[in-house]
């Protein structure tokens, strides 16, 4: 078996043989991640209306369904309407602390069964139970960490109370966001990710960050575009105005 030391010393031997390389640099990183983080926040506090417009256009271009509600309390109505349209009864949701609202309370009594993600340290049994519920669920409701206008992308960071599969296993994914999550460009996303990794206080708890740009799609059979091959067939984004 090749060891790390053997592998790297072999590589260094080859690197030493290179001649006449042109000077090349990697991308300039934000000098102070925190500062950039704050700058982006400030920029977006002013520019979010244009970003929202762009987000909606791009999100719809990738077959996303956009909703706009006045208050967070209106979100359950939208979920209810989607469930009715899909004739779905099983809803999976991020934990209320991660989502900002308790869907079990607002939807539970209406023939919809709502499973909430646990937010304690789940043991093996809790994980098994959640997985079974996730595999059965028809609608998955999540929050959003960033909504990227340039590409109509929802960016979700996994973690405690925010399982990665809520946006994957159900055939319909519903993501909730507000103006504080809007970003304009991939470049800004890069800055936010640098900050996220640099600052222990902002350190993500989970292992996965997903960029979601529209529904799951394939064109593998005769280049015919088909939705929902493994992940959701439909993706909804609900913008909450007053938050």
């Amino acid at each position, binding site marked *: 078996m090749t060891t790390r030391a053997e592998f790297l010393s072999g590589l260094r031997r080859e690197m030493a043989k290179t001649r006449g390389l042109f000077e090349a640099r990697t991308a300039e990183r934000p000098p102070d991640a925190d500062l950039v983080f704050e700058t982006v926040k400030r920029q977006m506090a002013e520019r979010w209306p244009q970003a929202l417009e762009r987000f909606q256009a791009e999100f719809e271009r990738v077959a996303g369904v956009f909703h706009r509600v006045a208050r967070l309390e209106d979100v359950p109505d939208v979920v209810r309407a989607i469930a009715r349209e899909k004739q779905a009864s099983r809803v999976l949701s991020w934990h209320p602390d991660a989502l900002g609202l308790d869907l079990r309370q607002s939807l539970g009594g209406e023939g919809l069964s709502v499973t909430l993600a646990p937010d304690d340290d789940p043991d093996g049994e809790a994980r098994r139970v959640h997985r079974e519920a996730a595999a059965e669920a028809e609608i998955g409701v999540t929050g959003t960490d960033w909504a990227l206008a340039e590409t109509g992308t929802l960016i979700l960071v996994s973690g405690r109370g925010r399982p990665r599969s809520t946006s994957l296993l159900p055939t319909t994914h519903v993501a909730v966001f507000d103006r504080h999550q809007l970003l304009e460009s991939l470049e800004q996303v890069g800055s936010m990710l640098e900050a996220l990794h640099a600052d222990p206080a902002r350190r993500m*708890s989970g292992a996965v960050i997903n960029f979601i740009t529209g529904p799951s799609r394939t064109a593998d*059979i005769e280049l015919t575009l088909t939705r929902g091959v493994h992940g959701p067939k439909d993706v909804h984004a609900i913008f909450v105005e007053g938050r």
Partner: protein
Amino acid sequence: MSETQLRTPFPQRAHAALGDAHLQEALTIATTKFIGLRKESFAGYPAGEALRDRARAIKEATLQRLDQHLERLADNIERLGGHVHWAATGDEARDIILRLCRDRGVRMAVKSKSMATEEIDLNEALEAAGVKPVETDLGEYIIQLAHEKPSHIIAPAIHKTKGQVADLFSKELGGRFEADPEVLTAVARKELRQKFLEADMGITGANFAVAETGTIVLVTNEGNGRMVTSLPRIHVAVMGMEKVIPTMTDLMIFLSILARSATGQKLSSYTTLVRGPRQPGEVEGPEELHLILMDNGRMRQVAGTLREALYCLRCGACLNVCPVYRQIGGHAYGYTYPGPIGILLTAMLEGTGAVKDLAHASSLCGACKDVCPVRIDIPRMLVELREQVDREKIAPWGERMLFGLARRAMASSALFRLGARLGRLAQRPFVRNGRLQGLPFFFGQWTRTRDLPPVAARTFSERWKDLERP
């Protein structure tokens, strides 16, 4: 590709592909569509050209400090609770995975599309060891059921019709399925969903790995990359060592051009950043994460003629525009990586001997270089490969003898004049419509697929003498 097919010489494989009318049609439709999508995407993205230059510079800069970036990546992955393995060869990479399977009682492994695992023939090895590998990218799944190999880096089953897929599914999965992509996709969803939930191991490649944060990046449209990294208890990623990039800021630059080059999308449906196994508080995710960093011929090119091929992002754009690929498709190349970049990668992995014919399977038109997101100078390296093939004396003897004669004739004006005079006489029976065609003996190899201008009735130097006399 079976062993016998591989042993068939390239000209025969290419000839067979040229005779396959259905393949020709599928290739034309697919490559034309991809070219259009890419073009449209970059046309609406003025920043794209500058980003391509930056992406190229990042690749070069990363190579210049590759050892440091790999160390940093490994340190960070281990800090997050993952394991890093170093594989000098494909055999070694395979053995690492087989040992993991054995030690952990793995019976089924789900895979998301990965050229790196194709490169090491992982599926065959897993099967032989009693582990069932299941490809989950729809195209790859079709190919696996049909016992074939992918024909395009990003559209592995473009050579199959929906009718063929329906027949295949009906036969392999039991049932009678309509030849409708929508229906067939739903069938695959149901079938594969079960596999995701049952599998013990998820195997992926890696589009990138970010050294600074220890992040493995997967780009997919179907979501199978997410399934494979979320549901099974073990995640194994196999990655060529050149795929490491320094930072998240760098990653954003690559993401902004990768999907545009491949499918014309701004971003693929899913870009998944995986940082270690399941973290405390998470309800799902694998218990174990293993990253296999693979050399397999790449290392000796760090200072070799194919260095620039180490920039490759595997987007497939160069395949679509290549006039040779568009005619013969992926299978005719005979190795894991088809198309112009595939010839270079084949030489890298298998040695120059493997490409003695393939090195010539290019018109050197430069279309590949024009569309490459990191502007890899593929034609230059193809010419260098041809030179190497000649130097290592692995070209057919007839060809070498002819070029040897030509070299001598061109180095001496007397011989050159004599040659022109002889040629004028000897060529007479073979000049048709002003072109030299259908030459006898082994010269025929050359003129079977091309013609040549005949030796002129009067050479340039003969005419020059006349012109000098006013």
